[in-house]
């Protein structure tokens, strides 16, 4: 799954497949990082945060 593992070949199938995979992983990773950082910031009162009524979000 990494280019340094010996099965890795720089061919179309690897690029497409692993490209899709890393793309999804990146989005998930970035999304979660964003949420965590923003939550920390909100908690520390840096952001515009404040209180929400979580009923809004269902």
């Amino acid at each position, binding site marked *: 799954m990494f280019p340094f*593992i010996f099965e890795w070949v720089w061919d179309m199938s690897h690029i497409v497949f692993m490209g899709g*995979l890393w793309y999804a992983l990146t989005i998930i990773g970035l999304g979660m990082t964003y949420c965590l950082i923003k939550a920390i910031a909100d908690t520390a009162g840096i952001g515009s945060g404040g209180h929400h009524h979580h009923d809004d979000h269902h």
Partner: protein
Amino acid sequence: MDSALIPEGVKRCSPAKFLIFLGVVGAVLLWGVFAMLLCWIKGLNQTNMNDYYGFALWIWADLAVIALGGGAFFTGFLRYIIGKDELKNIINYAVLIGFICYSSALLILAIDIGQPLRGWFIFWHANVHSMLTEVAFCLSCYFGVLTIEYLPLILENRQLDRVPFFHNLSHNMHEIMAVFAATGAFLSFFHQGSLGGVSGVLFGRPFGYREGVFIWPWTFFLFTWSAAACGPCFTILITKITEKVTQKKLVKDNVIELLAKISGWMLATYIIAKILDTWYWASVTAPSKGFWLLDFYSNNPFYGPWILVLEVIICGVLPALILITESGRKSKTALLLAVILAVIGVSLNRWVMVLQVMAVPVMPFDSWYMYFPSWQEIATTVLPVAYGVILIGLSHRYLPIFPQEKELNPID
């Protein structure tokens, strides 16, 4: 005792009653865990699988729960991407059911493989041409997405929500949930599809093999489609069962009906595609390899043409017709019947695409062999059911799963 953890404004059964419930289901769970340990310690000789049935009950269970868990991605897709806002009242439950289904699938896979400790080779030494690799990657990633979708729900527990960080985290995750849902839908499309590809690419097995486009056999699309159609049916079914058990209405009818209507049209279009696929396969693909349709359904004690009738007509056309008609959706009995049939239909389809693929002899001098699972296989398959029931029980008790519950069941 645990009243502090129970969401405000709703009523729950007594802790004693709940503990008895946990105890009973927990015993079943332990039975499954025992069987699981046997399989891990003594090996797969504990099963009735053999060299003809390398795939059996477990792989069927995997395919079936993932199809049924498809309610999560498809409802999420409808809610966040298409913008069917009413579905916010059932999405939590769809996510929870999805979470249970996918974690179960991963657990069963971990039991099913002969060398569980090497299971990670599927990622590390991935063969990108294998449908199973695609399944493994998308399945695990999507399980991650489901966890992300389930997490805010946990954080909304009355006590946890009081922690500002958790509250904020939960809020922020809700804010960008559409991104996660979209990623989840993307991943789901591929792994549902590649599960269909698992048997569809087997050109050595004329019963499973299908032609297709590019690298994807027709079963790839049929599986995604059927999961999108039947997954929500399963969500509805479980919701109905939960309502029955808790003796409360938890989701408003218009929400259920909307989901049922979409499912119905998905199912209707799916079944047309399925019929076309079966027709093409029976008249072109299989004969080119020397098989008549009935060769697959005769000379054996179990697999007969009744399977086709049951899967396509009774559990396909019939529920589709019920769900696409308004009167059908409005009738409680008809709706229930339709979702049950749809769930049976998709499970049967997965059974056929796993077990019958194994059963059909390919070498002309080979014979049909029948298979019945060992108790260890059954117990390990029941294990996730027990686990799911417990997780639903806990989630329902302590988390605000059903937003409409308070409104529908006001406490005097």
